[in-house]
């Protein structure tokens, strides 16, 4: 083989590999995979808004002035080096919506750590675990009383002392936990990729009952009027008796349920990635209405002024009502929406996939303000 031939062949192979690498969106100095960005929702306390940005920062905003309450708090994780890549840091993706008490803001990160930050100053109070990290945390924290609860991709649910971050107990499921726990009274409800919904005693993490579906459970459960409602990847929405986990009814949609449902006035509204909001009677599961939004729904809806506000992934926001039955288009943000919606005083807060925070009037659909969270 001539030298020219070798070079040509090597060039051809190089081009082939370049095409392969670019086709796979192969980032440098990392293993080839997509980069997690996060989809934190907003927590509202009075006029203060707290959320995790896609730059891995906890952001606190005064809703009335849109000014920062304190400088953004960055969360970073070490990025492994090797193969000619220097060791560095990388922003932590934040998927869970922060939980807020009167004193602290709780946050979970995809780096497998939970944080508590002083609500007044933004100063870090504690981090769990102090050394190392858990597997990625996708669900958000739930706070009740003096405890904070969250699940990890290592399959465990953790209960920590809210003031100190000390672990009180843990419960191990059979697979990843990506959902946010729901706590009602003395019981905590959490779904797992092992297809089960668990009801645990908040006191010690002991199992009260469990219910097995045929698909993974990511959606956060809703406790309403003596029943637990949650969707599964087996395309069913389930209603279980809160006391013993027995099945009340189940309802089949056309695709997964990813988001938490919402209940109002005896009707449960569950958005599915099949693009529809299924409105069912809470008692029987009987269909009241099906609203077709023609785009997957993964953001949990909210209730504002008696209407259900729901966002499709495409950025179209709707207001749904049963009496009269109508689907009203509020606004098209033209920006993808995955984060759970939040509301306060007739304003809907939406964190878009482009890392923009929108404040939308729940009645008129007018965009009151929008704020790009990306640092300048």
């Amino acid at each position, binding site marked *: *083989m*001539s*030298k*020219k*031939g*070798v070079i*040509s*062949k*090597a060039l*051809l*192979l190089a081009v*082939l*590999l370049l*095409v*392969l690498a670019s*086709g*796979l969106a*192969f980032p440098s100095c990392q*293993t*080839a*995979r*997509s*980069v*997690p*960005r996060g*989809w934190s929702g907003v927590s509202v306390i009075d006029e203060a808004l707290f959320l995790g940005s896609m730059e891995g920062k906890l952001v606190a905003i005064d809703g009335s002035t849109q000014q920062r309450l304190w400088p953004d708090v960055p969360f970073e994780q070490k990025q492994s080096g090797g*193969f000619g890549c220097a060791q560095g840091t990388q922003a932590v993706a934040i*998927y869970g919506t922060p939980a807020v008490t009167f004193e602290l803001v709780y946050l979970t990160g995809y780096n497998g750590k939970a944080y508590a930050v002083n609500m007044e100053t933004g100063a870090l109070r504690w981090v769990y675990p102090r050394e190392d990290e858990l597997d990625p945390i*996708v669900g958000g924290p739930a706070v009740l009383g003096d405890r904070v609860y969250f699940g990890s991709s290592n399959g465990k649910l953790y209960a920590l002392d809210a003031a100190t971050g000390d672990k009180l107990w843990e419960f191990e499921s059979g697979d*990843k936990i*990506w959902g946010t726990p729901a706590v009602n009274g003395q019981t905590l409800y959490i779904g797992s*990729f092992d*297809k089960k919904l668990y009801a645990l005693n908040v006191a010690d993490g002991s199992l009260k009952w469990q219910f097995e579906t*045929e*698909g*993974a459970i990511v959606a956060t459960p809703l406790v309403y009027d003596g029943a637990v409602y949650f969707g599964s*990847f*087996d*395309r069913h929405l389930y209603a279980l008796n809160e006391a013993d986990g027995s099945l009340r009814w189940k309802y089949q949609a*056309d*695709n*997964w349920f*990813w988001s938490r449902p919402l209940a109002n006035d005896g009707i449960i509204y569950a958005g599915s*990635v099949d693009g529809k909001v299924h409105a069912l009677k809470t008692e029987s599961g009987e269909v009241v209405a099906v609203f077709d939004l023609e785009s*997957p729904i*993964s953001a949990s809806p909210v209730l504002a002024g008696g209407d259900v506000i729901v966002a499709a992934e495409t950025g179209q926001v709707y207001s749904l009502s049963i009496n009269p039955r109508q689907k009203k288009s509020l606004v098209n943000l033209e920006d993808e929406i*995955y984060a759970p919606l939040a509301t306060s005083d007739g304003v809907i807060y939406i964190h878009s996939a482009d890392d923009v925070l929108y404040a939308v009037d729940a009645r008129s659909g007018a965009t009151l303000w929008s704020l790009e969270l990306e640092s300048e």
Partner: protein
Amino acid sequence: MIGEIWDLIILSPMINILIVVSGALFNNFGLSIIVLTLIVRGVTIPLTLKQLRSTKALQELQPKMSELQKKYGKDKQKLAQEQMRLYKESGINPAGCLLPMLVQLPIWIALFQSIIRVLAVVPEDFLKLSGHLYSSWPQVFSLVPLNSRFLWLDLAVPDRYLLLPILVGGSMWLQQKMTTPKTGDPRQQAQAQMMLWVMPLMFAFLTLQFPSGLALYWVVSNLISIGLQYFITGGWGGLTAQAATKPAGADRKYIKRLTTAEEKEIDYADTEADIGADVGADIASADVATKEGARYQPSLRAMKRHPKKSKRPKRR
């Protein structure tokens, strides 16, 4: 638009097939990838066979190359033409060796995209998986995310024990070694050795970067290639010293004819003019042949076509 076509034709079918096969094979995604490899290699078997025949023919031509290199090494232009002609006569398309790899490139990309979706590596990718699932196949909804454990591997991430890069590189080296013809030319031999190492090392490096599931595909695919090469080309090829020293029957005949032709002073100028049209008709092939490192070759076909011409005295 292109993205939609890609999803419809390649990605969605692959995702659903991988999920269903995994469900049928004890929820074992590793076995599912192996089955996918078998399917892809099965579908592309005509291309593979063509490639193998080309490889074998190239190996068999190697002694002729050496002979002609010695004889016509100085006239490069003529060398290229004769080389191309020889390839055509032998039914070899040197570019054919790359075709099975080119065909598999979209499969690699789709497999990578499938892996990061079905194994729930990153939430955004996993959520997008819902849009790929076939509503007419109800079981696919419940089966995901798939189990990423296979043997010692987590199929979603590179192998932390570095065994897989060694397997990928080693199997690729073995496969290439079988197809690398041995030559008597030390310079050529050195270049062949370099090529023998570049690809395996490059893929071993890629294995360190990509999810193990993709590397598993590469290993199984390489093993299939080695098996096919062994059975179709009838042995270990370039792995054994025999291939270099003992020309095949066809080669021996050819060399004998060549020697006879040399003795009788073949009129190459005449034969070249005779096939000039053929040369011009396939510039691309000639180019490839040149890139492949063509050596001067007398025209076997021309000799067959004009046996009498070869007996005429040389005009030059």
